[in-house]
């Protein structure tokens, strides 16, 4: 039996991945070709989607831009035997665009079944949380601080300092809120992670929650991301049924549970205090600061608010140590950064690499220039609120 991997990432679906999967399954069944189809997230090479991968003893080989209409028994038989076809890219992990990257936060995205906790553990999942549960909250917060992890929402506030504020606050109830209101055009890394490796975010939030003494977490996802909402919700159910969430996280005696809350089409709710209002069910009106949410946050209780990429970095830090994370990056920017290439670009997708890459490398080498074929005139960096560089 051969395993075939077909993405269920919503961007891959937008160019027909579901049709490819159902056609592939039907033809294989009718022709007694023995396969199992596993749906995964996307590798983030969107110009190659739908990208179908076939397991071989050397690794997974890829077939790009698979069109459900061009699939027939002989094509599928060849693909299952990993034969060289016109749309082959060989071993996907060796494909230069991927091989040049340093996938840390996205290490599992596009590889595992997003809602299989077994798959997640097999690929190094839950090690960070297990380590964290053996430590005191204060030493977990210390490790996060030491790692140099900074908020990935834009402001770059040190995550450890934020967590310490909530840890030291005295309250009967504390919360962790994940800001997954990824509203700026051109950004989709949060969505990809939630659709492709939701357990990483769950694990990161469980690390944060058990460290600072918060028993409840919310993931606020914009309604424009229906697939992320569905996958995240399902992953939370799976995590709960495996004891990763609940009254005693991994039998540690520490309680932590999660809930998804959907936005409703308001851009301003990406601002953290407006998001808190929205989670409480109100209009997304911005609250004056101070008080800061770390002291007076959701329902007036001390609350850690981080974005998806920040919380998703915590499992790696707790698994491999602050020093390993520190070792990646550049000056005050530690760790890796996930760059999203979009718009009029030939090779759009995500590039995760340690800080320090140049814009030229991103746009020309990874991006391959413009999709329209004309010279690059202007690059907008940092989303709609960023700068135009010409």
């Amino acid at each position, binding site marked *: 039996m051969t395993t075939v991997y077909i993405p269920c990432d919503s961007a891959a679906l937008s160019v027909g991945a579901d049709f490819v999967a159902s056609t592939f399954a039907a033809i294989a069944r009718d022709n007694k070709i023995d396969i199992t189809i596993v749906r995964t997230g996307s590798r983030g090479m969107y110009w190659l989607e739908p990208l179908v991968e076939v397991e071989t003893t050397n690794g997974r080989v890829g077939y790009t831009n698979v069109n459900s209409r061009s699939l027939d028994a002989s094509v599928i038989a060849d693909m299952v035997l990993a034969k060289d076809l016109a749309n082959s890219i060989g071993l996907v992990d060796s494909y230069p665009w991927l091989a040049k990257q340093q996938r840390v936060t996205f290490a599992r995205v596009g590889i595992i079944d997003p809602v299989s906790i077994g798959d997640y553990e097999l690929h190094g999942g839950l090690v960070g949380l297990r380590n964290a549960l053996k430590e005191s909250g204060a030493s977990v917060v210390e490790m996060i601080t030491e790692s140099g992890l900074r908020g990935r929402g834009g402001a770059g506030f040190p995550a450890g300092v934020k967590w310490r504020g909530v840890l030291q606050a005295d309250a009967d109830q504390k919360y962790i809120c994940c800001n997954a209101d990824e509203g700026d*055009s051109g*950004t989709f890394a*949060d969505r*990809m992670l939630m659709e492709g490796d939701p357990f990483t975010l769950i694990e990161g939030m469980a690390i944060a929650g058990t460290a600072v003494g918060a028993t409840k977490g919310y993931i606020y996802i914009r309604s424009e991301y229906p697939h992320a909402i569905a996958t995240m919700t399902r992953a939370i159910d799976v995590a709960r049924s495996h004891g990763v969430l609940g009254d005693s996280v991994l039998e540690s005696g520490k309680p932590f549970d999660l809930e998804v809350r959907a936005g409703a089409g308001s851009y301003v709710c990406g601002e953290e205090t407006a998001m808190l209002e929205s989670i409480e*069910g109100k*209009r*997304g009106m911005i609250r004056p600061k101070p008080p800061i949410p770390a002291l007076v946050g959701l329902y007036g209780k001390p609350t850690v608010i981080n974005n998806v990429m920040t919380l998703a970095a915590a499992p790696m830090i707790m698994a491999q140590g602050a020093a390993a994370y520190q070792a990646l990056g550049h000056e005050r920017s530690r760790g890796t950064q996930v760059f999203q*290439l*979009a718009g009029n670009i030939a090779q759009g997708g995500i590039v995760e690499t340690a800080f320090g890459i140049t814009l030229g490398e991103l746009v020309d080498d990874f991006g391959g220039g413009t999709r329209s074929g004309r010279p690059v005139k202007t690059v907008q960096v940092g989303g709609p609120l960023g700068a135009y560089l010409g």
Partner: protein
Amino acid sequence: MTSYSEDLLRGVLEPHRDKGVLYALQTTQEVIGYVPDTALDVVAGVCNVSRAEVYGVLTFYSDFRQSPPADVVIKVCVAESCQAVGSREVVAELHAQGFDVHSGIIKDGIACEQIFCLGNCALSPAALINGSPFGQVSAQSLLDTAAEMKR
């Protein structure tokens, strides 16, 4: 669905009253397809807030609609990344064919609306048709798919 039972809605919302007004309105729209005027009172009752507060939440968030939706709703992304590769032209072409993304006018059971970023920016221009994602779209591909879905 044009008629609904207030009691039935109350029964659906009641167990989730702690989640607040926004959640109740989202659930209402999920169940009925829109938020009828009389549902405001049901939500107000369940959440123990005034009708005015419910109305405030309803009108703050652009997802809510107060009349039944079209059979097929095309939501075209008009954010920056999609604009860079032609979503304005898509919107203009839809407009030329009688679909105004601002008013969301329903024609032949199809309505077009604008949306701001679906996170499908590497395959711009992007759209959702009845919740299903589509990438690298044109006005014609959207209308063809919508027509297929109607059938």
